[in-house]
């Protein structure tokens, strides 16, 4: 592909959603109304096709293509361009983002059909896609930060989409604040990078990675990772994501499952050259990722809101991705990111379809037995659920397995990560099965809702089917054979291979995790279908544990009371200090000035001319002084 074509395509990819945003936001309200969805979807289709074109055109290419649009800031040595880096990583992200977004846009045309904010929805959604594309295509940290903040803004707008209700407002604010903490970290990281390397472009920074002191590099990476924990909902900043489910379901699918929350993973993978040199930073990433995976999976076990189960599941899966990056397998992490985008978007859209069918009911305790009513939704969600539970040969199996296997092969105690990962896999399978069973099987628990349930329209089911195909096949197509599949060959040149792979043991490991997954499924089936053991009795027996889980390990409460309380105390103290010392000093000073002013105000005649005269006299004085000094020389 020649440079001009690449340039045009790379410009079209982000600009098409931006154009859709511009049209919809300016004209959507009055003139276009119900055309906005179509416009946005068409723009996304264009964008997705252009991204595919870029993939096909750059297949054989191993170096990164830089598409510079223009110089954004050029002050002295501080030069920032608006330019895109087209390499394997960004192309993969572009493809995932544009195609998933396209499907979700199409789905939303059905889902949001009767909403009075239809045009508003289809203004923010393409804007989000635009910022997301800027984030993944940027060739420097500052432009990435623009996209980073932009997706945060759109996330805020879309979580609070139904702003007339109090809960979405609160959720939007929470997401905003949590992200702010993370963004602060990211910003500090970026500033440190500039101070250390004198540039923000990825290629310059990575080329010069050796000049930084190891401690400084660790600090940079930890700050960047703090940003990633905010955006990608990891411990300690994960609590906003479950609340973000107050937004419309397509938003949850697109932003809070498939794309935006993976930005942290992408950023960490993109910064691999930094992290690799940064001593303990990778270990921190791995530990946090694993901890988040376990924690979120346990909370997901007891959630009753179908979307919240998904949300905690997303947090958990993101933990897996960070584990992948942390153990030095960014390819596996990116692979999981891609497959996760498919099956999690599918699951969200499927649950959206269920919610749509039940007229807005999200509580699984009111569902049950919906399988005959919603056949397409059921079968597609089943595929998605099995993929999430990592049952071979569906997509999730290949990618997740690779992450935990990488941990195992790393050795040196990293086997623990493998063990925890596999256990968490069983938990994942358990809550997935629980969710599916409670929703679709058994007896209907709410007759009224059941009677009125209906399958969603074509425009919603078609994306479900498309995503189901992806969720079923993506792993096999991209990841077979293990560790030498297409995705490895494609991304391979970007990342150095961390560990040698012992193929003979892969089969054993894969069997173990498959068995773990099946075990989880089976246990859930026994519990909820056969009531052996009865779930209520289990909850009673392990009452303390159950309470702990239902209350989300008391972390939310901890944040609300202790962290916020600590801050409140700090603010109170500083206010008191302010009153006593700073204000006291200022007041005394002011009193002094008052006395002085009372005497000096006679100079203030209120006649402008006098002031002008004073200025001129001052000028004369300065001129005379200058002349005197000049003449004395």
């Amino acid at each position, binding site marked *: 592909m020649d440079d001009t074509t690449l340039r045009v395509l790379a410009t079209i990819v982000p600009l098409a959603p931006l154009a859709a945003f511009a049209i919809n936001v300016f004209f959507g309200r009055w003139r276009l109304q119900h055309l906005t969805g179509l416009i946005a979807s068409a723009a996304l289709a264009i964008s997705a096709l252009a991204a595919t074109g870029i993939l096909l055109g750059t297949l054989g290419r191993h170096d990164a293509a830089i598409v510079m649009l223009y110089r954004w800031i050029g002050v002295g040595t501080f030069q920032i361009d608006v330019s895109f880096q087209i390499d394997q990583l960004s192309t993969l992200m572009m493809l995932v983002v544009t195609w998933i977004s396209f499907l979700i846009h199409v789905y939303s045309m059905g889902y949001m059909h009767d909403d009075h904010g239809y045009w508003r929805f289809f203004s923010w959604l393409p804007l989000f896609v635009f910022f997301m594309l800027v984030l993944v295509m940027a060739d420097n940290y500052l432009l990435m930060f623009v996209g980073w903040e932009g997706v945060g803004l759109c996330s805020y707008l879309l979580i609070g989409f139904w702003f007339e209700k109090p809960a979405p407002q609160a959720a939007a604010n929470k997401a905003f604040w949590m992200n702010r903490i993370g963004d602060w970290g990211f910003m500090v990281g970026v500033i440190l990078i500039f101070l250390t390397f004198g540039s923000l472009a990825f290629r310059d920074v990575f080329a010069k990675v050796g000049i930084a002191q190891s401690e400084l590099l660790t600090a940079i990476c930890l700050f960047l990772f703090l940003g990633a924990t905010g955006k990608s909902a990891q411990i300690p900043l994960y609590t906003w994501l479950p609340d973000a489910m107050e937004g419309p379901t397509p938003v949850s699918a697109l932003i809070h499952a498939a794309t935006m929350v993976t930005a942290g993973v992408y950023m960490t993978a993109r910064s691999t050259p930094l992290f690799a040199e940064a001593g303990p930073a990778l270990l921190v990433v791995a530990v946090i990722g694993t901890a988040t995976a376990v924690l979120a999976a346990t909370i997901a076990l007891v959630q009753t809101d179908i979307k919240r189960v998904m949300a905690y599941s997303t947090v958990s899966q993101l933990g897996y991705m960070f584990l992948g990056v942390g153990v030095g397998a960014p390819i596996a992490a990116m692979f999981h990111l891609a497959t996760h985008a498919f099956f999690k978007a599918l699951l969200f859209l499927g649950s959206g379809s269920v919610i749509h069918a039940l007229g807005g009911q999200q509580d699984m305790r009111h569902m049950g037995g919906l399988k005959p009513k919603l056949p397409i939704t059921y079968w597609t969600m089943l595929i998605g659920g099995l993929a999430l539970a990592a049952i071979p040969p569906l997509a999730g199996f290949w990618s997740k397995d690779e992450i935990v296997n990488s941990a195992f092969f790393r050795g040196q105690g990293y086997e623990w990560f493998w063990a925890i990962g596999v256990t968490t896999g069983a938990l994942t399978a358990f809550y997935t099965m629980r969710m599916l069973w409670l929703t679709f099987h058994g007896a209907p628990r709410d007759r009224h809702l059941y009677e009125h349930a209906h399958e969603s329209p074509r425009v919603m089911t078609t994306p479900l089917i498309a995503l189901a195909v992806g969720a079923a096949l993506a792993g096999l197509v991209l990841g077979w054979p293990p560790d030498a599949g297409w995705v490895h060959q494609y991304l391979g040149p970007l990342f150095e291979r961390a560990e040698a792979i012992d193929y003979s043991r892969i089969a054993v490991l894969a069997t173990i995790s498959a068995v773990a997954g099946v075990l989880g499924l089976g246990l859930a089936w026994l519990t909820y279908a056969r009531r052996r053991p009865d779930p209520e009795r289990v909850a009673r027996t392990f009452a303390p544990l159950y309470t702990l889980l239902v209350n989300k390990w008391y972390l939310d409460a901890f944040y609300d009371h202790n962290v916020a309380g600590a801050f409140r105390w700090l603010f109170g103290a500083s206010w008191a200090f302010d009153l006593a010392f700073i204000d006291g000093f200022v007041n005394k000073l002011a009193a002094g000035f008052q006395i002085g002013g009372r005497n000096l105000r006679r100079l203030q005649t209120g*006649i402008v001319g*006098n002031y002008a005269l004073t200025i001129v*006299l001052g000028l*004369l004085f300065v*001129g005379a002084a200058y002349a005197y000094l000049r003449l004395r020389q």
Partner: protein
Amino acid sequence: MDFIAPLIFVILAAIVVAGGLAVVLLPRITGSALSMGLSFLGMAGLFALLGAETIAFFQVLIYVGAITVLILYGVMLTGVAPAGADRRLFFQKQAGWALVPLKFVGVVATVFALSFQSNVVQQPGGDLEPLANAVFRDYAFPFEVASVLLLAAMIGAIALVKRGDD
């Protein structure tokens, strides 16, 4: 041709200085405004003579086309007060007293300035491109700041003259 440039200079300088004097001395405020416009025009001519045509036309566009008209607007909206120069004289006396050293310094500065004997060089090809390069490349940031200043001034002016009831 050597005499033409100094001749033009003298004519333009006379216009500028006479216009400036008229601004100060004419009793009628509209007269002041018009002579200010004249002085600005002469100044534009001086700029053109210096080879800074772009600046010269900006001068016409902004000073003659906008500022003078704006001032005329101001004159007409505030009404023309009768030239009552004899109501409070104490301030004028002060000013006149101050003007003596001021004029003295002015004369000294003028004499001093006349000792710059080197001629002004005229570069070939006009000043449009160097100016554009300077403003939009080297001074891009100050330029942006200046535009923000203009915006602030505009909002401030609107806020100041906006009546409460509309």
